[in-house]
């Protein structure tokens, strides 16, 4: 077919279109493979700013309004009005929730794999500034979540004691209902 000025109109052939389509879809597939293989790595590094200490004590605003008063000494960060830490009761095993656990990628439960004898008591000590829990199950969608053991919310700097007398021997995953990427395993012998 020709146009008014007699130059031919070239229309796409199936082969040519298939070639173009193969390029587009091929790039998508390669991209998907790379993206899926890096899925977890891509959200594993907290930003450097997440470990900064505040320069201002926000809980104690200066009379002039504006920013809080500068903190007097570097180690009294955000103690606020809370008194000296309460004494911890004695327990057979201690499970520590480390400071900074709330940030994805940081170490959270210490130890992650906790082994106790049936009947032992576990002191769950939250050293973080954020609230956390120790709740059995794989995550919020797990039907058995919270059925076996659950500390419910432990506020920052507080603790709770977990009894294991009612738990049969076996290995149970647990997690934090507030920060579901915090996970660990409890083994009862």
């Amino acid at each position: 077919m020709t146009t008014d000025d007699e130059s031919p109109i070239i229309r796409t052939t199936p082969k040519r279109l298939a070639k173009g389509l193969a390029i587009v879809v091929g790039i998508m597939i390669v991209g998907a493979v790379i993206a899926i293989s890096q899925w977890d790595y891509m959200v594993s590094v907290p930003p450097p700013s997440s470990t900064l200490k505040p320069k201002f004590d926000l809980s104690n605003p200066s009379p002039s309004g504006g920013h809080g008063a500068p903190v007097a000494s570097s180690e009294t960060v955000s103690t606020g009005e809370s008194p000296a830490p309460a004494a911890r009761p004695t327990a057979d095993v201690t499970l520590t929730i480390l400071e900074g656990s709330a940030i994805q990628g940081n170490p959270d439960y210490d130890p992650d794999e906790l082994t106790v004898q049936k009947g032992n008591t576990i002191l769950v000590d939250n050293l973080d500034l954020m609230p956390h829990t120790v709740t059995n199950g794989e995550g919020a969608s797990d039907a058995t979540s919270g059925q076996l053991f659950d500390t419910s919310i432990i506020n920052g700097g507080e603790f709770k004691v977990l009894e294991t007398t009612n738990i049969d021997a076996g290995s149970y995953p647990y997690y934090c209902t507030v920060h579901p990427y915090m996970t660990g395993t409890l083994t009862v012998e």
Partner: protein
Amino acid sequence: MVLEVKKPRPLWEIIFSTHHTDIGLLYIILSISFLMMGGALALAIRAELFLPGQQIIPDPNAFHRFFTVHGTTMLFLWAIPFAAGIGNYLIPILVRYKDMAWPKLNAVAFWMIPPGAAMVWMGFADLGWTAYPPYSNIRAPGPAAELWIFGLKILGLSSVLGAINFIVTMLKCKHPDLPIMKMSLFAWSILAISFMILVAIPTFAAALIMLYTDRLGVTGFFNPALGGDPIAYQHLFWFTFHPEVYIFLLPAVGMLYEMIPKFSRKPIFSYQSGVIAFILLSTIGFASWAHHMLATGMSFTEKTVFMVGTLAAVPASAMHVFNWLATMWGGRIKFAAPMLFGIGGIMLFFASGAGGVVNTALPLDFITHDSYWVVGHFHLILMGTVSLTFTGFIYYMFPLITGRMYNEKLGKIHFVAAFSGVILVFMTQHVLGLMGMPRRYFDYIPLPEWIAMNQIATTGAWIVGLSYLLMIYNLLKSAMTGVAAKMNDPFNIGEQYYDYRRREPHH
């Protein structure tokens, strides 16, 4: 592809060409591909919300990553590149110049998009497309967040380069016999958004760098613990992105000005009012950014200023709508697929505009803020008006690009399904918002009303998704085996189509 060749060239010659139709074609293919990928994420999000509790997305963090990449993709990899692609195709034809002013810069602007897109899609950041601090600067895990920041910087630079090119092409290279007040209204819309991009984007570019140094911990612009102010970021962000809303919208408005007079077989009702409305919208767009932040605790004076600034956009938008309606009035309208999409876009423009007036009214804003109402509202404008019009323009341009006709019946089925699907999803989301459902939630309280509404919305989303698959099938099939189009009037409307007799690339 009929426009670009005298004889078929190898594909790599098209891919690495600097000719405006080749680059326009690359833009269009890239943006349609990302529309499909972003749409797949949207369907996953809607499937997740079909029922309360966890459905198909493994955990809330993955859900956040899904909707972040969905939003970023649809805005920066579908709406903007598509408008740039159509602009590349049509602007040199409409202003009668051989190519864009700087063909190589044009190619550079296009080729910045794939690396930017790759950075956004490799990382799958979880900070939301707005990346509000304090989450984004002290918590959001990297390297995804860093990739997102730099990906968006590259995409922003790409649109700035494209905008410079469009402005110079239109103002310096247009044919001397073509006065600017006779230039097509689509060209006017691209001119308006190009100036808006030049003014708006640098602010966000600065905010991104500040966000990045904040994340490194060396600055505290938006970090309250270091004396910074997270609200400052919102000001910088919305100073760019409220005008950006018009940058998404105006090309669609310009496309409606191309399609509606032709399919109505009548001249535009009032060309001058169209030009004036473009200029008004592109200036007023800068006077309303803080209406996104009415709930952040501004003074009453500030809130009132931005409320009035927002309402000032209503007359200009109404001028456009009135212009279209008056053009159609009494015309012998041909309801081909492009025209149907255009009319659907106008109807939903009116609906979403009315919703926008509710949003900006101060007392009502506090009810709808951060609820599904907002999600429904901006999707109604971006999907309902912008994307439906863009889709219509894909069908409208199809004969010009391929020299063949698409399947008209499938095109009409696509319109009916997409239009009703869009209404099902986004009108329902308005209601959900008024029922109190917050946005961005992975899980929701199992109230029967909420479940029913979410299920209607999800069903609508699947209808839209299927209709777009039908479009892809239609386009691919018709590009290969469609009927040869009558090149000077493919839609049989007795109107001049675009000049298809472009010579081979001249460089």
